[in-house]
């Protein structure tokens, strides 16, 4: 429904992205504050991903995206919903049942496999994108994200080696890389203005 109203209201992709991030922040705050439990938080997070659909539509409508980018966004949204649901199911089952062996391995794969979908979507986008400048811009953003991951990984890794900071899970590399990618692309768009 929201997607249908996007053109008439004139709301751009930034509006929907902001609304999505605001929702994620509110859900995170509710979870940290103890107002909602884990499964509820995961379900709300998955529902919040629906806001990314009008964002993609608004982006396509604005003419600022290519067909390849539209496909990429769609794949990332599907993978993200799968990731949130997979993570929620895996954590809920792991906390409430005595799961071991291959079943536990399978549980661990529930959030991992959709995450690989996000990485695949990025690779596919670089293959599909016919506009060489948009491809170049994405590659530069991805390299910036990689730089952020390597810098923080080395910095934090040595702090952790000398037990100055607590351990963090290795899967954090993807969100950190994605944030770096976002900052890198945002910087290039600002330069375009």
């Amino acid at each position, binding site marked *: 429904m929201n997607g249908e109203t996007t053109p008439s209201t004139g709301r751009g992709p930034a509006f929907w992205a902001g609304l999505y991030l605001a929702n994620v922040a509110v859900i995170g705050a509710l979870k940290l504050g103890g107002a909602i439990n884990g499964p509820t938080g995961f379900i709300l997070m998955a529902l919040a991903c629906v806001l990314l659909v009008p964002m993609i539509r608004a982006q396509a409508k604005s*003419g*600022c995206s290519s067909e390849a980018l539209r496909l990429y966004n769609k794949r990332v949204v599907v993978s993200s919903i799968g990731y949130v649901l997979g993570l929620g199911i895996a954590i809920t089952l792991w906390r409430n049942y005595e799961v071991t062996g291959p079943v536990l391995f399978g549980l661990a794969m529930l959030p991992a496999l959709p995450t690989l979908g996000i990485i695949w979507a990025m690779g596919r986008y670089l293959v599909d994108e*016919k*506009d*060489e*400048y*948009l491809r*170049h811009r994405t590659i530069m953003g991805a390299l910036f994200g990689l730089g952020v991951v390597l810098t923080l990984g080395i910095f934090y890794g040595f702090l952790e080696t000398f037990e100055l900071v607590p351990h963090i899970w290795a899967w954090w590399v993807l969100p950190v890389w994605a944030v770096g990618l976002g900052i890198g692309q945002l910087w290039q768009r600002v*330069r*375009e203005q």
Partner: protein
Amino acid sequence: MKNRLKVLRAERDWSQQHLADLLEVSRQSVNAIETGRYDPSLPLAFKIADVFEMTIEEIFQRD
């Protein structure tokens, strides 16, 4: 690399979007090339030359 894209486009009274459509690229691409932030590949440079019916050297020059 310098280029005369903006001047050539203005002479023909084309918008960035119109040129982008002719080249089958995004408007951002045309903008990035015009402002010198991005040097096009050789195939795209040939395409630009074809659209303006000029040679690549007449459009792009060394700094």
